[in-house]
């Protein structure tokens, strides 16, 4: 056996170019399959995290009828002991009480339907953390005018700022990154920040004011310090109406929320909707998201005596996102399958070519007494070697790409970015971290190499040395 492996290995390097061509066809196949899959899975993961982890939570406690009829009438009263008992589960990381319902927001002659989210300002920092999303700087037309008068502002920067008119930033770092300013430009950066600063502040516990999402504030033309009028229907048909000063603007990563979200303190929302302390949901984030279903079952057992409430997971709360991902995954799998077919015939062609090139050699070997079986074994070993070389180098080559793509996601621009944002997602494409998919792709491609060499190797067993020597 050892001898066979040795011969096979030497055979490979007898004609280096031939081996490298075959191995590189495998290398590229694997490289593309893995990076494509990594982009897909990374994007889904990002979508889930953006929509679920940063707002609705992996699990939610709701009234039993809330899922069918998500109206404020299906609110429930939650005792502090209920919240505390949820926290006792080891897999539960965050538990935050919420009031969510719809209302009409208006200022002057403009009005828009909005999602009012009543939150506990302190506890919410552990989940959607609006404090971190507060808009600190904005390129308003007025601030742009002031920037023009600043010293040391290049015309190219002015043009860039002009193209980003109205954009808002949550920190100095994002402003710096988006303008691609260097550390040496710190004086300029500080000047820019001073000019563009937005005064906003976060909500205090039982604050009388509200936080408005960025796009909504743009639509309604209101800013920090202005007043927004909210109208709607409260608990059990009471009319809900009130005027609220805007404390700050928050930039929600999901455009769908950014278009319509208003944060209010829990006490204020309760008074607005006449809820008398009731909640519409309790959002829960988990430590280990793979155990979501198990934790859901555990919590449901815990709440069994509460009859009126139930624990739902994000797939039940947001079936649209689930279906969106499923549908996209299906098309991704089909695309991958097409890629596999192309790869297979690519490899098959190269292997076939490589072996037919060596027909005379095989004919010679058989005619001087080499057993056909042994020859086939050597060839199989050769193919395994090539397969291993190709797939291992292919996998290795994707490692830096995946690390890079995971840490610094690809930012989409133009039309593609618009499509993503229309669907309510950030226009970025991160790659998934190493997981089963990585090894699975390697395995699949390696298996295809074996499959591609099966027929050619089989033909060795029926080799006619005379014909082979004549090259027929």
């Amino acid at each position: 056996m050892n001898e066979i492996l040795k011969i096979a290995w030497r055979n490979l390097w007898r004609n280096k170019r031939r081996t490298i061509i075959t191995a590189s066809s495998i290398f590229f196949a694997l490289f593309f399959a893995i990076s494509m899959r990594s982009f897909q899975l990374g994007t889904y993961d990002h979508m889930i995290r953006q929509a679920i982890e940063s707002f609705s939570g992996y699990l939610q406690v709701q009234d039993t009828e809330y899922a069918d009829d998500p109206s404020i009438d299906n609110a429930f009263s939650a005792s502090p002991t209920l919240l505390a008992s949820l926290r006792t589960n080891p897999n539960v990381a965050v538990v935050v009480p919420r009031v969510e319902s719809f209302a009409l927001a208006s200022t002057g002659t403009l009005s828009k339907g909005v999602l009012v989210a009543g939150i506990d300002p302190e506890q919410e920092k552990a989940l959607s953390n609006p404090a971190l999303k507060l808009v600190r700087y904005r390129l308003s037309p007025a601030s742009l005018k002031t920037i023009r008068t600043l010293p040391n502002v290049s015309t190219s920067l002015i043009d860039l700022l002009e193209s980003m008119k109205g954009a808002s930033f949550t920190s100095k770092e994002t402003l710096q990154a988006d303008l691609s300013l260097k550390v040496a430009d710190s004086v300029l950066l500080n000047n820019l920040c001073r000019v563009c600063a937005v005064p906003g502040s976060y909500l205090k516990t039982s604050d009388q004011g509200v936080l408005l999402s960025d796009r909504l504030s743009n639509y309604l033309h209101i800013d920090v310090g202005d007043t927004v009028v909210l109208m709607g229907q409260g608990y059990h048909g009471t009319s809900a109406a009130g005027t609220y000063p805007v404390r700050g603007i928050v930039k929600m990563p999901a455009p769908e929320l950014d278009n319509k979200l208003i944060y209010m303190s829990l006490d204020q929302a309760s008074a607005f909707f006449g809820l008398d302390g009731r909640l519409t949901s309790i959002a829960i984030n988990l430590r280990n998201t793979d155990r979501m279903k198990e934790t859901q079952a555990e919590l449901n057992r815990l709440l069994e005596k509460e009859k009126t409430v139930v624990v739902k997971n994000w797939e039940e709360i947001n079936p649209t996102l689930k279906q969106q991902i499923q549908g996209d995954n299906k098309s991704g799998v089909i695309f991958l399958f097409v890629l596999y077919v192309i790869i297979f015939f690519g490899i098959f062609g190269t292997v076939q070519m490589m072996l037919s090139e060596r027909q005379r050699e095989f004919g010679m070997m058989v005619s001087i007494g080499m057993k056909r079986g042994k020859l086939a074994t050597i060839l199989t070993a050769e193919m395994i070697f090539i397969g291993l070389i190709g797939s291992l180098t292919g996998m290795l080559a994707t490692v830096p790409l995946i690390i890079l793509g995971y840490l610094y996601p690809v930012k989409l621009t133009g039309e593609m970015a618009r499509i993503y944002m229309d669907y309510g997602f950030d226009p970025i494409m991160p790659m998934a971290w190493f997981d089963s998919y990585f090894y699975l792709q390697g395995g699949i491609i390696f298996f295809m190499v074996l499959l591609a060499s099966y027929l050619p190797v089989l033909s060795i067993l029926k080799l006619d040395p005379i014909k082979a020597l004549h090259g027929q």
Partner: protein
Amino acid sequence: MKRPSCLPILLALFFSVSIYAQDATEIVRKADAKFNGEQSSYSEMNMTIIRPKYQRNISFKGWATKGGKALTVITAPAKEKGQSFLKSGSNLWNWNPTIQRLIKLPPSMMSQGWMGSDFTNDDILKESSFVKDYRHKLLGEETVQGIRCYKIELTPLENTAVVWGKLILWISTDDYLEMKSNFFDEDGYLVKTHLSSEIKSFDNRRLPSVIEIIPADEPENKTKVTITAMRFNESYSEDVFTQQNMKRVK
């Protein structure tokens, strides 16, 4: 011998039909005047909104004139108190004291419930046009809750802004009281029923004091309006039906 002409009989039939038709319009007009007053009306009412999960009470009072102007102000519960509604021609305005805003209710909100009840905003706006906007046809007589009633079908006239496809009213033969009404949509499906009962005397006028509104597709939902006081044909100054007064009225 001359054969008797059938013309007189036909003529008689023709006139009787037309008299009958005129009669139906007259009945609706009388019923309308009875409830809304010949010149004006003032009313105090309690409304109970009944839902499978809860009940809610709202009290309000209102002034209305024959000219199509009406002002309604909520008097209870405390959270809603002071909200007023002004109907002027075909516009409906809402004043909300909590937000200090005067809002014109857009056409898109016409089919929505008034104050969360089964009353639609359109009911409040269109109530008085039963006489003018419909063609009336007497279908016969029926007994509703022990009271002999005319059964009258109302079909909307062309070029009128009416949301209903057809109405059937039951109006009592002796007092011209609207005892029951069925509202149908354009496809002929029953949308809701108004049912009147407990006839009492208000300002020397016998009227049903309880009106129930029962939506056909949600039989568990119901709105019950109880009239607690009513006065008729008082004269109101024009200032009553103004946006300024909406903010003052209590």
